[in-house]
């Protein structure tokens, strides 16, 4: 526990002398995951190579997929929402036109905003479950060389 709280600099300056061979590698014939106390300093650094992940094709595809949904969805909802105050302000005759009984376009347009928000939210949840799968693949790939957790 104490080790985890140490600043990173202390961990990098590992006092173990550097030798030609990785002497503390687990014995041959054992293909299971190494117990924590047998990990070499390099293996135990617990640092993901963030730059490598960021540059990987899987991660780039994830970011691209997210942007492909989020940017158009954001632009759409902002335009749809701000159309309401703009139209109410600058096209009052149109907005006051009665559609069903005494209900006018202004009220229906305002009401439609609720359904717009719900539909965008549900579409996002659907898209995001695809993103979740892509993210899990990236994380799983990372864990493999170290034999998982």
């Amino acid at each position, binding site marked *: 526990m104490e080790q985890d709280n140490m600043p990173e600099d202390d961990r990098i300056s590992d006092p173990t002398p550097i030798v030609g061979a990785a002497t503390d590698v687990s014995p041959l014939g054992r293909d299971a995951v190494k117990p924590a106390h047998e990990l070499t300093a390099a293996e135990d650094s617990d640092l*993901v190579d*963030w*730059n490598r*992940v*960021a*540059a990987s094709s899987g*991660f780039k595809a*994830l*970011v691209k997929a*997210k942007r492909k949904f*989020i940017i158009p*969805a*954001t632009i759409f*909802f*902002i335009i749809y*929402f*701000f159309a*309401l*105050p*703009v139209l*109410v*302000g*600058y096209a*009052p005759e149109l*907005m*006051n036109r009665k559609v069903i*009984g*005494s*209900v*006018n376009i*202004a*009220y229906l347009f*305002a*009401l439609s*905003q*609720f359904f*717009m*928000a*719900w539909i*965008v*939210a*549900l579409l*996002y*949840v659907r898209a*995001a479950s695809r993103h*979740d799968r892509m*993210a899990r693949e*990236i*994380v799983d790939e*990372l864990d493999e060389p170290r034999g998982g957790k």
Partner: protein
Amino acid sequence: MSTSLLMFLGFVAVTLIITYWAARRSQGATAYFAANRQITGWQNGLAVAGDYMSAASFLGIAGLIAFNGYDGFLYSVGFLVAYLTVLLIVAEPLRNAGKYTMADVLAYRLSPRPVRSMASLSTLTVSTFYMIAQMVGAGALVSLLIPGVGFNTAVVGVGILMIVYVVFGGMLATTWVQIIKAILLMAGTLLLSILVLAHFGFSFGNFFDAITHVTYHDKSGALIPKNFLQPGHYYFGPNKPYGVIDLISLCMALVFGTAGLPHILVRFYTVPDAKTARKSVVWAMFLIGAFYIMTTFLGFGAATIVGRDFIANNGGTNMSAPLLAQALGGNIFFAFISSIAFATILAVVAGLTISASTSFAHDFWTNVIHRGTERKPGEEVKVARVTACVVGVISILIAILLGQSINVAFLVGLAFAVAASANLPVIIFSLFWKRFNTKGAVIGLATGLASSIILILLSPSIMTVDLPGVAARHLIQHAPIFPLENPGIVSIPLGFLGAFVGTLLGREPEAEARFAELTVRANTGLGAEK
């Protein structure tokens, strides 16, 4: 004892039991600040909804619709659509890359001390203004609803209760108080809406017909008929040359401000992962949306069934919903709705207090003053508890000092404007712009904060000459220098501009180097706080 007092005491008793239960379970910082990150999706959805549906929504919007018709309903729309910004842009990256506060994400790749100081200042500003508005509202309500309890007593009572929840129960107790209140509020609103519809024989046609023929007496005493479905009773008119711009400005503050409200953002740290954070936003959106659609019945119901004249003579706009309950369901229902209003205020101030004290303890005390290390274990929680007491006492004092005669609605507007102009630009830039740096964050936060506060001070909300004979309700008796009530349309672009120009002033290779790490963490959840 009045029925409403009894019901209110019942709510207080239940919440105190929860606080006792939570206090026994809360050990350590993660438990205190983030409820051990064990809150589930629907629970957090209710809690987010509870934090959001403040007295301003329940009482304020019902009143705005009852008095101004359609224009009040625009608030309802904006309050919900705002959650798309939270859902699409902020919630998941924040959960993945942060620990307890919004500043965690900003400090990730920027120089922590200046960034956290400014972020903490802006968080405390938003929370304090928001809280004072709630406290003054609470005091005014209690003194109207429970005969014999004065304004000051009510403010002190609400203040002490919120301190107890936060100091002893931490985030776990605050979350459950929020959940219970949200359920009560939804139930009360649903019941009230059904009664309104029943009044019109369950005919939407009759209901909307009545809305188009609302009558009330204007200042000169003449009876005037109005179509309340027609937009513009509040924002447009011959004496409002900037009405449309003001309305757009309000919409901007709502849509971009919610994603910067600290008491909403901290909620995403109470769930296990980003996926649950996303689920909870969707839960919250359905609850909040259903609630705000029902404000149609509350507000227009009060306008048609109770009437603007009666409300104006019996406590004013904020009493619209309780008076509607009285007209439809008698005194017991009046008591029920009133005690829900108390519960609402109490829960929201507790949520505000915990986000303010978390920000002070985590951002300012531990990370700015002590450079990121606790001197002894448990110090951060201890500081947060002391801060909660201090914040509580200060809000009580300011609320009593301002008194109930001052119009405090602008404080909530100010909170949204600061959140939108100061917090949101830096959150977005730090997540999506590689070159963004410390200078940009500090200047962006400062510009957003200063411009929204200064513009509000110069706006008609503060600077207006009150008519002779009317009690002075504005702090500065002078013609307004800035014509809009909502500064958003100017201050939000200024906040973005400040962050942008500040960034261009210099380069910060370390910040750019850590962008890859932040992006990977924010998008995959790798290494997220468990």
